[in-house]
């Protein structure tokens, strides 16, 4: 506000200064010019016209004030300019709003002709066969100069509106390029937009400049007019007007009109302004029509005015009248009311005196009854107080129970998530927790075995059950539970008809009982049972029932997980066994040879003995004994080989024990010795000293190493004999033991490195290609890994790792 005020003050001061200057010199007349192409361009085009006017009219100096559409309006409103020179659209806006009046119309020079009318062209690319008339523009993209540009958009808008197209709604895109308009022509030519509109003569000008060819464009809604030979698509509108403002001196306006009309076409001012001077002011109603039809500019609110406008205009008077009327009415009502009230008060006072007297008598009477009521009420309150105390006590009990449940839950969580307890240990702890939580003497996990029930685990302060005992199923009350039974709670046997008659009460002396079914894989595995030889007087909240369910669900889930794990292990063991049988087959001939050695030796020794004994050469007795000893140790050697073989083909559940990895390596080398010899491979051991024990199934790890060694040997079948060397290396760190097998074979092409572990992948002619796949699964069940890499200078490296540690790993 203060800003506006200051600027106003400043401008007023300026005006005063100019006026005072004009008294000595010429009066300064400001012409606001629409600078639609920028400030400088406007000055360049019109300064000579201002100079022309200054020369033509004595006593005045004219200057050009370039204005944007917005600042033009402000300048007119604040009377900062005396004349305006603007486009027809802006002019009619100012005419309608501020009473501007045109005094001349510009004769624009185009194609060496003067035009006082102009129009707009709506066009598309010549080869756009989808758009042939204005109606076809619906749903197309369109480009114009600026939403407020008269020739650059609004003219076309009206034409589109006539064919029922709202450019802001019905086009797929409406873009505004700003000046120069040439951009629109280029955008249409390049296909960036489907169609566009520009001021008339733009296409002709660009064509003559050589930047486009008019033939490349199709003109929509083309109009023909003998007086206006330029290409155009809209109706014709008068060119820019020179206009005076409402307050501008009419005589000065006349002088200017004369000066403008007499401006010669060849004058410099005309040439620079790209015109042939000025003509008499044309009729701007077509422009008004455009604005009315489009409901923009001065006609934007045309439909809404009337009542509100009137109210706004006369609001002061209306308000004043209304206030007076209301004030009058209030005064009248007040006076009437007061009169009426005075009368009423008089009557009321009389009645009141009467009633007070009555009330006094009544009060005396009531005082007695009140005393009695107070005593009664006091008694009631005392009762209520006691009730409240009871309530508080009950709440406290509930709170204690909740706290207990929370503690129990905490304990259960600690038990189930313990890393150090076995499953059995966890079950026992849970049973113990259950006992103390539910106030029971014993807890047991029962397993159904056909017609019997097995006491799988039990914890007890009262020796009811012994672990491992088998009961006839009818002797245990839990037998009544089914898969979807809720926890069954019997607080006191004498209150339960069925339990009272049951073996468990009669023979085992159990008075209170809780039974919950244990579900494994959707079927009834057994029961969780708690009980006591005493009646149970502990309240059982819903939380405790949830707790029972929680324990039974955890146990069921854990058993299910164990079963699944056992199945998986068995499956894996089966697979490994099958693979071992395969390996055995491959190794059979080599092993036969291996077995032949001790057999041959035995035969040799014994036959040698027999010969000597038959020859009765008794003097050889000591050496015969020695030979027999040697023969025996050879027999043991044969037995050892057979035992190794047996172990390899044995089908047993994997048995994990602490093993020295170096021992396993030695056994494997022994088993493969025939093949190693046969293929002339040398083995180089790089074994670490005293590696930590690994907790593994020995047979399976042997199988993996046999596999790796076998592969290493096979891989070197094309390697020169002298280079056939396998390095077997063991090493360890804090966490793992690692064995690496290096060969000098053909190596692993990069793209095959991960394939080798796929089942049925093989580079050998014989063999199933299961070896590495099974080996990897064996390593994974041992929480280890099996990896392959290319060896520098040829060959490959296979490595296995195993975690160091105990059973838990």
């Amino acid at each position, binding site marked *: 506000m203060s800003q506006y005020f200051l600027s106003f003050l400043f401008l007023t001061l300026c005006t005063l200064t100019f006026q005072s200057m004009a008294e000595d010199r010429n009066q300064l007349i400001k012409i606001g010019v629409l600078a639609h192409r920028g400030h400088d361009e406007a000055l360049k085009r019109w300064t000579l016209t201002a100079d022309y006017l200054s020369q033509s009219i004595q006593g005045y100096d004219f200057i050009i004030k370039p204005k944007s559409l917005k600042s033009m309006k402000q300048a007119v409103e604040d009377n900062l300019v005396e004349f305006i020179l603007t486009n027809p659209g802006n002019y009619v806006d100012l005419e309608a709003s501020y009473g501007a009046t045109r005094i001349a119309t510009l004769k624009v020079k185009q194609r060496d002709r003067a035009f006082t009318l102009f129009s707009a062209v709506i066009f598309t690319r010549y080869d756009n066969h989808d758009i042939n008339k204005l109606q076809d523009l619906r749903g197309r993209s369109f480009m114009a100069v600026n939403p407020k540009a008269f020739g650059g958009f609004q003219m076309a808008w009206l034409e589109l509106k006539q064919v029922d197209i709202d450019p802001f709604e019905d086009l797929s895109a409406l873009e505004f390029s700003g000046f120069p308009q040439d951009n629109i022509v280029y955008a249409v030519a390049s296909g960036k937009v489907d169609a566009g509109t520009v001021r008339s003569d733009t296409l002709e000008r660009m064509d003559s400049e050589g930047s486009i060819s008019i033939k490349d464009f199709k003109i929509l809604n083309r109009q023909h007019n003998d007086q206006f030979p330029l290409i155009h698509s809209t109706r014709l509108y008068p060119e820019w007007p020179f206009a005076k403002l409402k307050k501008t001196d009419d005589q000065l306006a006349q002088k200017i009109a004369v000066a403008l009309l007499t401006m010669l076409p060849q004058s410099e001012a005309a040439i620079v302004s790209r015109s042939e001077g000025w003509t008499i002011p044309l009729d701007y109603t077509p422009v008004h029509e455009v604005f009315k039809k489009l409901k923009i500019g001065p006609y934007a609110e045309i439909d809404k005015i009337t009542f509100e406008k009137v109210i706004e205009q006369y609001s002061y008077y209306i308000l004043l009248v209304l206030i007076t009327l209301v004030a009058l009415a209030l005064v009248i009502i007040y006076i009437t009311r007061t009169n009426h009230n005075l009368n009423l008060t008089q009557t009321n006072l009389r009645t009141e005196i009467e009633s007070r007297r009555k009330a006094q008598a009544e009060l005396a009477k009531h005082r007695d009854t009140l005393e009695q009521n107070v005593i009664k009420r006091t008694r009631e309150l005392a009762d209520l107080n006691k009730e409240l105390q009871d309530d508080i006590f009950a709440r406290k009990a509930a709170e204690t129970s909740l706290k207990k449940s929370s503690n129990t839950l905490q304990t259960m969580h600690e038990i189930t998530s313990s890393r150090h307890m076995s499953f059995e240990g966890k079950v026992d702890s849970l049973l113990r927790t259950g006992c103390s939580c539910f106030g029971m003497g014993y807890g047991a996990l029962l397993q159904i075995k056909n017609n019997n029930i097995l006491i799988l685990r039990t914890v007890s302060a009262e020796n009811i059950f012994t672990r491992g005992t088998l009961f006839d199923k009818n002797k245990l009350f839990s037998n009544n539970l089914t898969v979807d039974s809720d926890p069954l709670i019997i607080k006191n046997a004498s209150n339960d008809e069925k339990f009272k008659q049951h073996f468990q009460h009669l023979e085992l002396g159990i008075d209170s009982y809780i039974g919950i079914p244990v579900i494994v894989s959707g079927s009834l595995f057994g029961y969780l049972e708690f009980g006591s030889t005493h009646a149970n007087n502990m309240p059982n909240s819903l939380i405790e029932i949830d707790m029972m369910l929680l324990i039974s669900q955890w146990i069921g889930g854990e058993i299910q997980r164990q079963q699944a794990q056992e199945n998986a292990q068995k499956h894996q063991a089966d697979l490994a066994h099958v693979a071992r049988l395969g390996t055995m087959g491959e190794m059979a*001939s080599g092993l*036969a*040879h*291996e077995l*032949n*050695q*001790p*057999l*041959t*030796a*035995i*035969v*040799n*020794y014994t*036959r*040698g003995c027999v*010969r*000597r004994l038959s*020859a009765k050469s008794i003097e050889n007795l000591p050496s015969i004994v020695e*030979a027999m000893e*040697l*023969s025996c140790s*050879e027999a043991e*050697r044969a037995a050892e080989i057979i035992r190794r073989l047996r172990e390899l083909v044995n089908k047993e559940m994997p048995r994990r024990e602490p093993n020295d990895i170096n021992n396993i390596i030695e056994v494997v080398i022994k088993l493969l010795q*025939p093949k190693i*010899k*046969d293929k*002339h491979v040398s083995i180089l051991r790089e074994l670490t000293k005293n590696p930590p024990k690994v907790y593994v199934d020995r047979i399976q790890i042997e199988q993996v190493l046999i596999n790796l060694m076998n592969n290493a040997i096979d891989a070197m079948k094309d390697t020169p004999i002298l280079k056939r060397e396998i390095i077997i290396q063991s090493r360890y760190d804090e966490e793992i033991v690692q064995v690496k097998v290096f060969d000098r074979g053909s190596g692993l092409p990069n793209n095959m490195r991960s394939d080798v572990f796929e089942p049925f992948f093989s580079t050998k002619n014989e063999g199933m290609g299961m070896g590495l796949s099974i080996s990897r699964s064996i390593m994974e069940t041992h929480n280890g890994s099996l990896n392959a890499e290319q060896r520098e200078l040829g060959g490959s490296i296979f490595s296995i790792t195993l975690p160091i540690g105990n059973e838990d790993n």
Partner: protein
Amino acid sequence: MSKHNVYVVDDDQAVRDSLRWLIESVDLNVKTFSNGQELLDNFEETEISCLVLDVRMPGISGLDLQQRLKKMGSKVPVIIVTGHADVPMAIQAMKAGAFDFIEKPYSDQLLLERIQCAIEQDDCFKKQQIINNEINQRIDSLTPRELEVMGLVVSGHSNKSIAKELGVSIKTVEVHRGNLMSKMQAKSLSELVRLVMSSSRTTIKE
């Protein structure tokens, strides 16, 4: 007379030692080696002997060793033993001139009998070689003319036709003939023919 030698090459010590035990029971001298190279370093060609080789050995295999000995010109009989015999291997061994091919575990009887046979063969061969050497020495002592005359005599020419052939007198032929008969220590024509036939000097045989 000293005991004949049996060379045993096997990489398995138990097999080696037990073979020694077995073979020594038939009064043969046993020399054992754990690999082929060791044998080649210690082998005495001149003694009557036989070889027992295991096919599957590190370094030089039994078959390779047999080939090498053959290339060296040795005629020593070789018995190949193998833990896992297969037909191609047997054929290869026999083609290379193995004396026999025995599969482990073998009966001692068979092995010892084959060893005996091999040694007899070698004994025979060596004796023959000695005789051959003797005959060759006698042949070497003949003058070229005597050698020429002997060739013609052995091929059945009469003194007369020899004289005509060589362009000398019958008397001269008779002198040569008398000399060569005594140098060859042949008492009759038929003995001379037998000596020449058993000689390894092929040049005079036609």
